[in-house]
């Protein structure tokens, strides 16, 4: 590769530094290299691909449901199969795709965007990846064995309790939560520490790109929301495995306790999926309108406000449970209040587009699609936030329409835009623009055809989670329309991912900065070398690549012989000290195998947790035990970059 790419004013000795850094940061090689990688670019790429594979499987399940509902009294799926399919569709999209893909994008992009050479705690990152992989494998194995969870993605007791759900199906749900939340929490900690302590000198907290702010806020939400669902899933697991009575009303338990714990996680979860997308939208809007996003401070405050209010909404998912009216009024008010920060952001983007020179290339098109769809989803959200209307529409297809408008509109559209936008950074090649346009219009049209009719279906009384319906209900035509729309949507997705697969090999070469980007990830080659930046950058403003003088100062004196990163101060990003991260190792994989075996064995006996914890402690000791002085942080001799 060209050493000078992305660093037009290289220092003397750059070639020697390039060689040493390449050796030091070389990825694992040899037969077992797949199990030993720790670099955030390699793990991030893997994370993204794995999450999209779960997305594709979840999408296939959605297609099965649409086929089944296309006409009245259809027999594609049996009652029991339908229950498993909609449950696994839900947990796939929420636990295995939405949160992991948002974290995975950050794992790849954030260290580049803030100008550092590694994600904090690279081995923990590998561990988090394997946990996601094994969790998904467990669920889909269960589905093929006809023992997948079937009590809905939110798994309400008493239906999910031992009395009404015999067998192991619900236990699979409970263990999947453990897999995915361990993974999500680990990555959240890494992202927060990386953002707080590894920003390029000069990138004070008021100069952080909005995407970095969004991921910081999201990660904190994960830290406070995910433990609640882990507590809940352990309660239900214990009820089913050792006979506790958390949700058994006969012995003083309470099924509503489940709903409180679940939605204390479940509602913030929506914002955990949505806020990263807001950051992606800000990045894309700014680059494709050729100007900084309007109202930086208002945008940041809105992100933070959304996160706080997001924790005060959970009861609005429980309006139909007979809670006191004063409580319901409070949560209605909070639910309407969250429209304020969302509105502020929408208006800031509109102002940015208005004041800028928008160019409607595919990433920006997906953002425009996001604004249109999300506004509709927001409007139906304000509708169901009102208690009387919610009581009418609860558990109908109106809610299905609403949540897909919010989640697909609010999260998937920006994500598809972001993957198109950062694809060149990940692969070194561009995705095809024409195919990008085609896929956008197919997805946009298909999405609206699929989900808009569901508003009407809900209003005329079609409940959720039914596997079939009678012809006399009159729901047939709209369902058929919706199924046809799902076909168009699926075609759009095929074009999008086909484009990605072909472009990975044959796309036009991108170069370091194909879009004229503003942020630091565009200041290094595409794909970046293993050491990320030849000289660590120094930042002077919010859009370093647009504002910085061509010959901006860089950092020297970071070791080229160790995997050393520069630790800077949390608020002002002044250099503080240097810190060495470890290299490739197989321990995270072994620890994840042990954790996974423990969770799967825990389906059958509580002793698995005692034995598993003991085994895990041994593996963790191997993980943390320092390698010999000579090797610490240093690459084994001459592992070439070719092995990547």
């Amino acid at each position, binding site marked *: 590769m060209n050493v000078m790419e992305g660093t037009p004013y290289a220092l003397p000795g750059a070639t020697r530094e390039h060689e040493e850094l390449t050796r030091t940061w070389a990825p694992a090689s040899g037969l077992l290299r797949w199990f030993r990688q720790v670099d955030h670019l390699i793990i991030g790429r893997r994370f993204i691909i794995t999450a999209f594979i779960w997305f594709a499987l979840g999408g296939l399940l959605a297609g099965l449901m649409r086929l089944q509902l296309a006409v009245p009294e259809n027999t594609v799926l049996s009652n029991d199969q339908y229950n498993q399919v909609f449950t696994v569709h839900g947990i796939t999209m929420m636990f295995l795709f939405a949160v992991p893909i948002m974290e995975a994008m950050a794992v790849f992009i954030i260290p580049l965007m803030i100008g550092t050479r590694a994600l904090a705690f690279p081995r923990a990152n590998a561990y988090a990846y394997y946990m996601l992989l094994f969790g998904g494998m467990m669920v889909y194995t269960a589905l093929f064995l006809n023992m997948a969870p079937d009590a809905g993605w939110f798994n309400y007791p008493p239906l999910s309790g031992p009395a009404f759900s015999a067998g192991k199906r619900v236990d699979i749900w409970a263990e999947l939560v453990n897999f995915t939340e361990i993974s999500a929490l680990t990555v959240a*900690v890494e992202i927060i520490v990386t953002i707080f302590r590894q920003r390029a000198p000069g990138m004070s907290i008021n100069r952080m790109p909005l995407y970095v702010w969004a991921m910081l806020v999201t990660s904190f939400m994960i830290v406070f929301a995910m433990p609640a669902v882990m507590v809940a899933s352990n309660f239900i697991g214990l009820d089913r495995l050792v006979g506790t009575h958390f949700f058994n009303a006969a012995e*003083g338990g309470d099924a509503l306790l489940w709903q409180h*714990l679940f939605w204390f996680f479940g509602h913030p979860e929506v914002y955990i999926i949505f806020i990263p997308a807001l950051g992606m939208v800000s990045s894309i809007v700014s680059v494709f309108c050729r100007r900084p996003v309007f109202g930086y401070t208002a945008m940041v405050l809105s992100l933070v406000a959304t996160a706080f209010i997001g924790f005060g909404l959970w009861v609005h998912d429980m309006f139909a449970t007979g809670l006191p009216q004063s409580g319901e009024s409070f949560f209605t008010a909070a639910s309407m209040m969250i429209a304020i920060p969302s509105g502020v952001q929408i208006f800031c983007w509109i102002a940015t587009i208005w004041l800028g020179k928008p160019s409607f290339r595919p990433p920006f098109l997906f953002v425009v699609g996001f604004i249109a769809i999300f506004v509709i989803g927001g409007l139906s959200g304000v509708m169901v936030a009102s208690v009387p209307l919610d009581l009418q529409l609860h558990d109908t297809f109106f809610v299905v329409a609403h949540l897909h408008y919010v989640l697909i509109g609010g999260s998937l559209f920006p994500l598809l835009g972001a993957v198109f936008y950062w694809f060149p950074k990940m692969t070194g090649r561009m995705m095809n623009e024409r195919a990008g346009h085609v896929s956008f219009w197919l997805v946009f049209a298909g999405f609206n055809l699929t989900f808009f009719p569901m508003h009407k279906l809900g209003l005329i009384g079609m409940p959720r989670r039914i596997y079939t319906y009678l012809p006399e209900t009159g729901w047939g035509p709209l369902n058929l329309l919706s199924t046809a729309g799902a076909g168009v949507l699926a075609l759009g997705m095929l074009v999008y991912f086909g484009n990605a697969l072909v472009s990975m090999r044959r796309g036009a070469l991108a170069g370091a900065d194909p879009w004229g980007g503003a942020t630091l990830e565009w200041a290094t080659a595409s794909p970046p070398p293993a050491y990320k930046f030849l000289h660590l950058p120094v930042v002077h403003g919010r859009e370093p690549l647009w504002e910085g003088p061509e010959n*901006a100062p860089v*950092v*020297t004196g970071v070791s080229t012989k160790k995997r050393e990163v520069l630790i800077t*101060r949390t608020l002002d990003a002044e250099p503080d000290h240097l810190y060495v991260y470890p290299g490739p190792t197989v321990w995270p994989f072994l620890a994840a195998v042990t954790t996974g075996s423990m969770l799967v064995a825990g389906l059958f006996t509580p002793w698995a947790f005692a034995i598993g914890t003991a085994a895990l402690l041994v593996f963790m000791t191997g993980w943390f035990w*320092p390698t010999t002085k000579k090797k610490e942080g240093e690459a084994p001799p001459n592992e070439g970059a070719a092995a990547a």
Partner: protein
Amino acid sequence: MSERATIDVSALPDHGFGSRSVMWWATVLVILIEATVFVATITSYFYLQGNEAAWPPPDTPLPGLEWPTVNTIILLVSLLPNQFVKAAAEKMELRKVQIGMIVADLIAIGFVAVRVLEFAHLNVRWDSSAYGSITWTLLGFHTFHLVTDLFDSIVLTVLMFTRHGREPKRFVDASENCFYWYFVVLSWLPIYAVLYWAPRIL
């Protein structure tokens, strides 16, 4: 190729204690996660209490108070060697760190031994009522977090006796381990109050 201004960082130290270190931040976040687990569990405790006319439920004796009180005193005493190790680690005094960590580990092992007696005197089974379930689970969560940290401390203690013990990074680890122990002690106090005093007072 033109001249380019630089910031030379080669003179910076290779470690930092407290809020300067990445380990400190990771420890704080783990503490936040575990604290949220405890808060959610304690909230569930009082939520379930609201369903019962009497707490503990009729015919269930109160949990024994002696052993948990002994344990609380043991934990408070453990703060002394803990602070001793933290101060010594930040001055990188290897011998003091080694001795202090052995003392702290022994006290923690004593705590775990008394914990077994605590379980034996809860006077309720986990499967006899929701009260029993939440009592066992709250004490169980705390024990799990205690045992894993104890194991971690023992590994670190052994490490301090090897040649790796002299590296600045290890002293940072020792200091952060003490920082975490403060959380172990402080989080126990509300759990002690909930499990053993709430059924007596409320």
